[in-house]
């Protein structure tokens, strides 16, 4: 076999192994640590199956777009775009592109396959404009989830401190 043919064959095998070898990812958002079994390999962006999008940030892919409550970001699904592509009948959603549109900051450690997303500005608009307390959801020391709504109707003193 000629050297050039060997190279082509080697490249082709790498290409196909990338296509078939499942890559996983870990996604951090608020307190969530979501392990995604299979992502679409990409040099910079995070592409996940639509059901995994919901596990990450509660957005649901609907015919009209990616939606969270009343907010819907239009997504074309009958053709490929920056937000959505179809590969072998499997749809893939670009979570980082959605974050960019929402002006949600994110950072990735590509080596470890870990993605970390900041808060969504849309969820804090009422905090800045009308002094509405942002909601939170964290476990207390006994493991019970605590959210702001648990204190509805109360006068709440929220304190932060640290051991350091």
């Amino acid at each position, binding site marked *: 076999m000629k050297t050039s043919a060997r190279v082509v064959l080697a490249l082709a095998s790498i290409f196909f192994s990338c296509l078939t070898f499942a890559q996983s990812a870990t996604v951090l958002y608020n307190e969530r640590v979501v392990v995604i079994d299979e992502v679409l390999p990409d040099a910079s962006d995070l592409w996940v199956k639509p059901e995994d999008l919901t596990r990450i940030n509660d957005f649901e892919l609907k015919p009209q777009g990616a939606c969270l409550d009343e907010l819907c970001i239009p997504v074309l699904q009958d053709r490929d775009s920056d937000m959505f592509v179809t590969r072998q009948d499997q749809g893939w959603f670009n979570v980082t592109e959605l974050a960019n549109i929402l002006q949600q900051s994110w950072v990735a*450690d590509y080596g470890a396959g870990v993605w970390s997303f900041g808060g969504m500005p849309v969820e804090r608009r009422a905090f800045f404009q009308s002094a509405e307390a942002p909601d939170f959801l964290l476990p207390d020391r006994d493991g019970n989830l605590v959210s702001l709504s648990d204190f509805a109707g109360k006068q709440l*003193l929220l304190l*932060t401190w640290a051991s350091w």
Partner: protein
Amino acid sequence: MPVWQVIYEELQAENPNFEIVSFAQDSGGETDAGPIFDAANATYTSVIDANHTISALYNLVNVPSAVWIDEEGKIVRINEGTYAKNHGAFGTDEYVPIVRDWVANGADSPYVWDTETVSEKIFQRTPEAERAQPTFRLGTYFFASGDEVKAEQYWDMAQELDPTSWNYLRQDIMYEDGGSAGPEWRARRDAVEGAGGTYYAPLDIEPVPNNDR
């Protein structure tokens, strides 16, 4: 901490509608913060916030900090360096009396701020500083996974993105020589205060005249 427990018991006896939720900004989790909650015999809601989520969410840059939230979920005071008492080198006896006033008088307390004042008092972050939050979060993930090299890398990056956060600085240097209140912290604090800045967000306990909220 033990002081807040005493105040909590006093104020709850007076007004059962009053609650405290206390968030330890401690990436070391239960190991670092747990014994302090235990020693305080805390009966209010106690949360260990390893990712500093609450500071990110409410734009707080130091500890201790406090936010007052009313019955409707509205913020009526925010972003103050708050201690329960004067501890000598730090702290103040001026804060608890205004909390007491709020618990007694609710919206009629002269220490309740209107929406406009709260909006002005919320600490403003740059877009870079907003990016510090997921970066710090990534560092904390690696810290919890035992990868101290990557934890350090992202915690350092978070401090560069948000130099206003004392939390990010001190959480990080807690695990370094010198500790969280050592020479590095002292130098940074002196530099900020020397330039006319403040280490703790200053208390503004002037009563609001004719508060008609």
